[in-house]
């Protein structure tokens, strides 16, 4: 298995899936090298879960080829199942069992050597901070605990390829970051391949080596986070004014990139560096313009999305100056 580093861990060619006459996936090509993290990014209903279900042998494609860990998904589903671990969008734990029992169930079904089962369960409980809750029924767990248990159950079989469908949706910022650390650890320590789906652009940016943007059943872009950002060009600064008068005045004075007459907002070209900000503020002062709000927008995946699909998705465009430092995620 380890010799196959050149072979893609996940490959899809011209995959199509329709429900009735609703085409959900239309000619998807994917190629995920072993040992990397791949993010499938898309808004609600774009087909992310459908893609994961196809790859994890739950449903069959109408056309195209899918290979996972060197096996054809349609012809050798059991070989694929032996290589993968799936954490679906919705919790896949047995709510009537305790956390420990759930993990033990997985250890039994993965037919770990008998002596190792208890140890494996204990290790995972420890690693996922579930020791205290181990004896409680999963039905009493919080959303974050369920998510951790879910992922822990996926790891029992030591899968080589892991599919994570929206692993952090619904988690608070701290739990989200914990989940990110776990995902990074899996790739760094165990060299697994991960395909994750997300609606959060910063999550894909944080975790993925490569990103594919899925929109209305088609991949509209694929590349590294940097490549995608480069497609969009420089950043801009958004200014919001209190009233029509200030707005019109400013629109005449500044080099406006785009304007929104209803919201009294103007966008001007520029990066978030101190020098150009100071220059801008000076000009606003000289013209005696009272700005209600100023937001600096460095290019991120939102722009990618906007540029590719014409639709903004997810978090609102840009971050306000005051909070942009606090919102910065720790560097990788």
């Amino acid at each position, binding site marked *: 298995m380890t010799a196959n580093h050149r072979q893609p861990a996940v490959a899809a060619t011209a995959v199509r899936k329709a429900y009735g006459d609703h085409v959900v996936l239309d000619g998807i090509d994917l190629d995920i090298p072993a040992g990397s993290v791949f993010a499938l990014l898309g808004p609600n209903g774009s087909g992310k879960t459908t893609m994961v279900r196809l790859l994890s042998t*739950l449903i069959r494609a109408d056309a195209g080829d899918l290979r996972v860990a060197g096996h054809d998904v349609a012809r050798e589903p059991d070989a694929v199942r032996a290589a*993968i671990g799936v954490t679906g969008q919705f*919790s896949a*734990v*047995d709510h009537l069992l305790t956390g420990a029992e759930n993990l033990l169930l997985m250890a*039994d079904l993965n037919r770990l050597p008998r002596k190792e089962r208890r140890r494996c369960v204990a290790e995972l409980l420890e690693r996922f901070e579930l020791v205290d809750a181990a004896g409680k029924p999963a039905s009493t767990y919080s959303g974050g605990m369920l998510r951790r248990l879910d992922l822990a159950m996926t790891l029992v079989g030591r899968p080589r390829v892991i599919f994570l469908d929206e692993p952090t949706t619904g988690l608070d910022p701290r739990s989200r970051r914990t989940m990110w650390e776990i995902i990074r650890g899996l790739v760094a320590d165990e060299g697994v391949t991960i395909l994750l789906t997300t609606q959060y652009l910063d999550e894909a940016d944080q975790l993925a080596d490569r990103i594919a943007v899925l929109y209305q059943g088609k991949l509209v872009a694929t590349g590294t986070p940097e490549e995608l950002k480069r497609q969009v060009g420089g950043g801009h600064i958004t200014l919001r004014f209190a009233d029509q008068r200030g707005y019109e005045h400013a629109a005449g004075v500044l080099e406006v990139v785009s304007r929104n007459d209803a919201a009294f907002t103007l966008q001007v070209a520029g990066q978030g560096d101190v020098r150009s900000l100071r220059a801008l503020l000076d000009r606003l002062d000289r013209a005696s313009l009272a700005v209600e709000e100023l937001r600096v927008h460095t290019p991120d995946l939102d722009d990618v999305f906007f540029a590719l699909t014409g639709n903004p998705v997810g978090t609102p465009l840009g971050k306000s100056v005051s909070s942009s430092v606090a919102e910065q995620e720790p560097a990788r």
Partner: protein
Amino acid sequence: MSTVTHAVTDSATMLRRQLRHMLRYPVLILTAAGVPAIFLLLFVYVLGGAIGSGLGGSLGGSAGGRAAYVNYVVPGIVLMTVATSAQSTAISVATDLTTGVVTRFRTMAIARVSVLTGHVLGSLIQTMLSISFVTGVALLIGFEPTADLGGWLGVVGVLAMITFAVTWLCVALAMVTDNVATASNLPMPLMILPMVGSGLVPTDSMPAWLRWFAEYQPFTPFIETLRGLLTGTPIGDSAILAVGWCAAITLGGYLWARRLYNREPTG
């Protein structure tokens, strides 16, 4: 060879899961055992006196009245227990299959049908416990079986065979629709079948059209075989018929259930 061992170990794992569920949430089991016990009391104390003396000699006993009716009705009530338990199995299968953990099982390299086998084996154990309870109640209110040890072993064997068959059928019924409420009501007719057979009264007291149905439906040979083993009434070809029906229902139920389970999940 190894696929068979896997199927066995995986089914055993799923059975353990099922037993944990039952121990933790015993409501379904208590209902499955309680309802037939209540029917037993109703039939014996409310209707038993009248039916017993009305049917007199045709009940086979010499005593007549309520005492004879207890002995007559127990096999029918026992099969009603099989039916109520099978219905509770249908409920738990229908509920279970909507849960995420079963979706997880489908993505794992395990013996596929083991999820269902776990349910069936769990149900077998649960049904036997319920039957023991109902039989205990029957003994308390005057049931006097004449079976010897061999007879009792036969009773257990026949009941296991019937339960196995009916449960596989109910597991399939539970998967016919995605709707839990519908799925759990589909096995309802099984509750009625012992009554429109020789469960409560001999079939020759029924109108001709009903008697025809009662004599040819599977529960009548089931009941006659049990009654013969328990109280020594003639069994005739009922035993062969019972075995035949069970084999057919088991095979049909199993294949149907497996096919339904292997359908592409919609949820």
